[in-house]
């Protein structure tokens, strides 16, 4: 922590328009003041930097995969190398980018600000979470350096436990440790949301971003421990051949799949629910309208979190589970479409008759709306037993989950990054470039993944680096799209870095948005967020009265 002491009585009241002169960013400049900070905002920045690093590594693997798939022959790498490419892409992107992304950066930064608290309930635990994340990430990097892993990000047994000769333990240990970072973050959020709300901040005045993170945290603390013990068992199997997943001794490799997906399906909702929270904030702000159906959006987050734990078997329709089990999982999976659709309809209804403006965060939010709908609906196709048997393990599945994870989760992440960038850094980014890159990402994304629906439906299996020639044209589209998508992600990297030094200074509330973080805190906020504990008098999205008065 910084050595400067916050003394409310001694400091000058600065112009509320330009934000306080003393803030969390200039509270200390030494490396120690960052690496040993317990300020949730600084920890969020640490996460932002490290997540960007892992996103670039994961993206690099994606690029190599798409490059190999440009031609039907395996002319860039051997099959074993290719196996490692998609495995490392999956592990890095899932465990070290998508799962922590929105909660660790924006949840961390914003939850205390949004509920009117000085910090999260356990600031030191929060810092520990970041170190665990970094520790896990370093192990994953080591696994890459020592030659990679080839099991697929799912670590399926008995291949991972008995036969693979790659660095399974190192990578799995990385995921295990990063998992504890995720558990502790979720635990911190739950306690903070329960116990740290400012006077007047009732549950139904909470911004929906907070509800989204609350639902996410429930999944994090209930699901992650199960995958943790599963990873321990795989490691024990490799070290001591304990036989639990080894069919030779009467062990059951399918048990691994059950335990793995018990976490890893809900993990998809860990990725998407926080982005859904971002959606509710951005869409209301740029429609200048109260959210439509607050209660329904809040409870649909919880419904997704609960239902998410009951659908894992839909990953195992072809793994040898009983057909009756599959039917039950199929029906339960259809049910997830209901709360998801409730959200989409409510956001759409919020746009209706709103005064919509198309700033960069809003472009990403609208992009999310379309892409998530496509990803969600194809999820319903895949939940259907007979259809899934046809498209199982094809590019149709790959396209589906990228529409959710990239089209949903990362679009939400980008929307959040643009929306709260002025709050986090006190600087404005160049709006024109931001809109342009949003468009590039949208086009590049569709060009990358839409052809994969078609090629998957035609029967191209995932995880192969050679394929029949008739699939080439669609793969060329996909690779071209991936290039555009990559450029689309690099442009923001450049202008965000540029804006740190050259961007115009932001006022406390550049979007004229509602919410304590905009109305009561500076840009950037001071170390303890608010000069005095705020008192909340109204709901989260009271946009309309202001408009009529003006």
């Amino acid at each position, binding site marked *: 922590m910084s050595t400067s002491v916050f003394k409310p009585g001694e400091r000058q009241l600065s112009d509320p328009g330009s934000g306080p002169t003393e803030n969390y960013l200039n509270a200390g400049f030494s490396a120690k003041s960052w690496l040993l900070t317990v300020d949730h905002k600084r920890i969020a920045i640490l996460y932002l930097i490290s997540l960007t690093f892992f996103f670039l590594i994961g993206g690099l693997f994606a690029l190599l995969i798409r490059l190999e798939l440009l031609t039907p022959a395996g002319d860039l790498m051997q099959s074993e190398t290719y196996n490692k490419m998609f495995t490392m892409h999956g592990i890095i992107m899932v465990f070290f980018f998508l799962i922590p992304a929105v909660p660790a950066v924006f949840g961390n930064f914003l939850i205390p600000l949004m509920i009117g*608290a*000085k*910090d*999260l*309930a*356990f*600031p030191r635990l929060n810092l520990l979470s970041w170190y665990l994340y970094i520790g896990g990430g370093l192990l994953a990097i080591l696994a890459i350096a020592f030659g990679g892993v080839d099991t697929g990000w799912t670590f399926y047994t008995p291949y991972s436990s008995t036969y693979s000769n790659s660095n399974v333990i190192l990578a799995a240990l990385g995921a295990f440790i990063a998992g504890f970072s995720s*558990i502790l973050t979720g*635990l*911190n959020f*739950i*306690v*903070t949301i*329960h*116990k*740290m709300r400012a006077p007047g901040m009732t549950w139904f005045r909470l911004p929906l971003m907070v509800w989204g993170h609350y639902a996410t945290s429930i999944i994090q*603390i*209930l*699901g*992650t*421990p*199960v995958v*943790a*013990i*599963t990873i*321990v*068992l795989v490691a*024990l199997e490799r*070290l*001591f*051949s*304990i*036989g*639990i997943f080894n069919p*030779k*001794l*009467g*062990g*059951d490799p399918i*048990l691994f799949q059950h*335990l793995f997906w018990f976490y890893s399906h809900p993990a998809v909702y860990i990725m998407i629910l926080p982005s859904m929270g971002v959606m509710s904030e951005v869409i209301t702000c740029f429609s200048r309208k109260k959210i439509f159906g607050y209660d329904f959006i809040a409870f649909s987050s919880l419904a997704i979190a609960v239902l998410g734990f009951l659908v894992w078997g839909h990953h195992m329709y072809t793994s040898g589970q009983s057909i009756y089990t599959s039917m039950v999982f199929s029906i339960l999976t259809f049910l997830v479409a209901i709360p998801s659709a409730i959200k989409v309809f409510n956001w759409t209804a919020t746009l209706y008759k709103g005064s919509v403006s198309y700033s960069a965060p809003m472009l990403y939010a609208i992009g999310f709306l379309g892409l998530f709908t496509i990803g969600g609906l194809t999820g319903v196709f895949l939940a259907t037993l007979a259809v899934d048997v046809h498209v199982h393990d094809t590019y149709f599945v790959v396209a589906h989950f990228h529409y959710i994870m990239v089209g949903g989760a990362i679009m939400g992440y980008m929307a959040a990054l643009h929306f709260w960038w002025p709050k986090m850094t006190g600087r404005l980014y160049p709006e024109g470039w931001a809109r342009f890159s949003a468009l590039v990402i949208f086009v590049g994304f569709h060009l990358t993944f839409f052809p994969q629906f078609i090629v998957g439906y035609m029967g191209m299996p995932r995880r192969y680096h050679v394929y029949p020639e008739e699939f080439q044209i669609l793969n060329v589209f996909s690779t071209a799209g991936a290039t555009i998508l990559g450029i689309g992600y690099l442009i923001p990297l450049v202008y965000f870095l540029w804006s740190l030094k050259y961007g115009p200074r932001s006022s406390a509330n550049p979007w004229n948005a509602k919410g304590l973080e905009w109305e009561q805190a500076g840009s950037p906020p001071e170390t*303890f967020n608010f000069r005095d*504990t705020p008192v909340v008098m109204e709901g989260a999205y009271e946009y309309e009265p202001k408009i009529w008065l003006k």
Partner: protein
Amino acid sequence: MANHHHALQHHFEDLEQQFESASLGMWAFLITEILFFGGLFAGYLVYRSLYPEAFAVGSYKLDVLLGGVNTVVLICSSLTMALAVYWAHKGERTKIVVFLFLTIVLGAAFLGIKAVEYTHKFHAGLAPGNAFSYDGPFADQVRIFYSFYFSMTGMHALHMVIGIGLLTYLIIRARQGAYTAEYSTPVEMIGLYWHFVDIVWIYLFPLLYLIGRS
């Protein structure tokens, strides 16, 4: 803001809010622990229903007497822990230290007996891995039983070791007079953890030791 107790952290309004947060956080953590062990228990139940005879054979080779003594030892340690929390509420420094120390002694006794049991199993060739040399009926599935036995009791023992570390920290802080009638949150939270680890054993003992013994 009247209450400026030295233990009050900067971001809480008062000690009550701080205690409630710690308490909720600890319970949430224990829920994650239940799910962590839950994966092992689920696996155990699957294989026990698949191979009931093999599990009975494996279980019969465990030392019920040592396991039973350990159960009593652990329940006593929960009593001493509860007494430590009780005296922490009263702020009686010496008594806190005494009962925490007794809890550590009982915990260490448990681990010692466990080590004796482990040694016996290793010598009998029942430890899974390459050293596994049991050659009776259902040898492969007995091996799976012992895999669960070692994973589950091993994970439990690891939690005991961590618990003893935490108790040692509490003793050091208690001797410095950190816990008073006003503030004894850490004693209470680590107490919850200790009871949880105890309860896990209460489930492990019958599931592992008492199969098919009537």
